């Protein structure tokens, strides 16, 4: 069953994230992703994540599709104008990519190519509208396509961002623009997530919650300081500090978070720091393997 079918089926969804290489060799990342075989409904591939230059996700998604994975290609509005976005959407369909995650993208000055021109020709709402249009056989200017795309489009949300009313303003537009699912920023505080899920319950869009297992107290403090909307509870940081085996403790904390949000979300998206070596273990603890 592909990811889009899983969304429709009501099944609890598991996705996991990988990033393309900073070079030309795909062997390591394909072997890394290989650990996810049989564990996930789809693999997400990032698009110059945090504005750090990497290989195009089109290529890695294609290679993963060849090995049997369904993929969710991240597509930011930062680096391409509407011509290039349309080209890449056609290419994605042709390369066996079925799902797109539409997002604005981090600003270039946050990454390693800070002098880049920030494009932002479309925003994430307009990109979702564009995908819907291409799915119905037309380009941005209403010209007919020789053959339409068939892409399941989702988008992102940040449950911790405040004010919530502004988040909801954008989210409602994304849903009007036919987003089929939302994936969230990493969830550390189940109460904050559940409040968000409750606020958007009436919209009825499936929420896939982002999960980052903590690896150290220091890393947790770093994320609290540096990532907008991330708020790791002090109690969890203390647990990490006193744990004999911080990595295992981080997996336990993640599993507890998943258990606490499971009634309000449709799935989880695992984006570990430093590879998927423990992803199977985490899913085993959660009974999701």
């Amino acid at each position: 069953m592909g990811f889009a079918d899983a969304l429709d089926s009501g099944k609890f969804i598991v996705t996991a994230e990988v990033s393309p290489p900073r070079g030309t060799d795909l062997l390591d990342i394909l072997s890394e992703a290989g650990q996810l075989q049989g564990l996930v409904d789809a693999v997400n591939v990032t698009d110059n994540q945090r504005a750090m230059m990497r290989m195009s996700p089109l290529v890695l998604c294609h290679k993963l599709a060849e090995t049997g994975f369904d993929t969710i290609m991240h597509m930011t509005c930062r680096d391409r104008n509407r011509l290039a976005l349309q080209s890449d959407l056609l290419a994605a369909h042709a390369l066996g990519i079925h799902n797109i995650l539409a997002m604005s993208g981090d600003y270039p000055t946050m990454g390693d190519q800070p002098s880049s021109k920030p494009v932002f020709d479309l925003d994430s709402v307009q990109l979702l509208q564009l995908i819907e249009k291409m799915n119905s056989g037309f380009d941005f200017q209403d010209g007919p396509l020789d053959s339409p795309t068939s892409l399941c489009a989702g988008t992102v949300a940040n449950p911790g961002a405040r004010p919530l009313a502004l988040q909801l303003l954008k989210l409602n537009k994304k849903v009007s623009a036919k987003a089929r699912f939302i994936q969230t920023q990493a969830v550390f505080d189940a109460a904050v997530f559940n409040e968000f899920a409750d606020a958007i319950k009436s919209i009825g869009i499936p929420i896939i919650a982002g999960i980052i297992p903590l690896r150290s107290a220091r890393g947790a403090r770093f994320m609290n300081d540096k990532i907008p909307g991330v708020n790791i509870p002090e109690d969890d940081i203390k647990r990490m500090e006193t744990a004999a085996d911080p990595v295992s403790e981080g997996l336990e904390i993640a599993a507890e978070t998943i258990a606490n949000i499971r009634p309000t979300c449709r799935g989880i998206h695992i984006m570990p720091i430093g590879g998927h070596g423990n992803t199977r273990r985490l899913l085993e603890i959660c009974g999701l393997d």
Partner: protein
Amino acid sequence: MDEHMIITRLKPIEEILTMVGKFPASTICVVGCSICARKIQTGGETQVTSLAAQLSSHGLDMLDGKMVKHACSAKSWDELIEENPALAQADTLLVLSCGAGVSLLGRISGKPVLPGLNTTSIGGALANDTLEGVCVMCGECDVAIYAGLCPKSGCPKSQINGPCGGSSDGDCEVEGRKCIWVTIYEILECRGMLELLDDIKPPVCHDRRL
């Protein structure tokens, strides 16, 4: 008070020296502009005199610096020379004005013009504050929807349908900036006009500016 303001910044002296170095044996006149550049002190009398003195100390053949009324608006070169005869004697003009002023003086003077400033945005002046980047000259102004504030210029990502995911607690993900969407929202909420934000706004038509 001037109602508009083109925001400029003085180029580093090393860059200016490299530019003038391409015109050896040239008599140079530094030209300031009495409108925006004077107001934000990038091309007023003080900056013109100081730059001329600096270049002179590097052994360049400098005339006394001159101010023009508006570098971006002139009837003719003859009229400018009438007001500032020294401009006619210069081989090269080093202009402390916005890009529009530099281009205009280049067109009408027939002389090489060198820009002494970098033009960064269109802004405004509020008492002693300079407001930078308040308009991107998109060619389809719709600030009425956004409480009079322009998200195309006020948001680094020009988000017109609501804030991006990097906005948190009123802060922009770009360091040192506030999220303009929070201000827009607060004003419209006060006015009871939040419904202005409900519709999905289409992308800018860039061909309208041609």
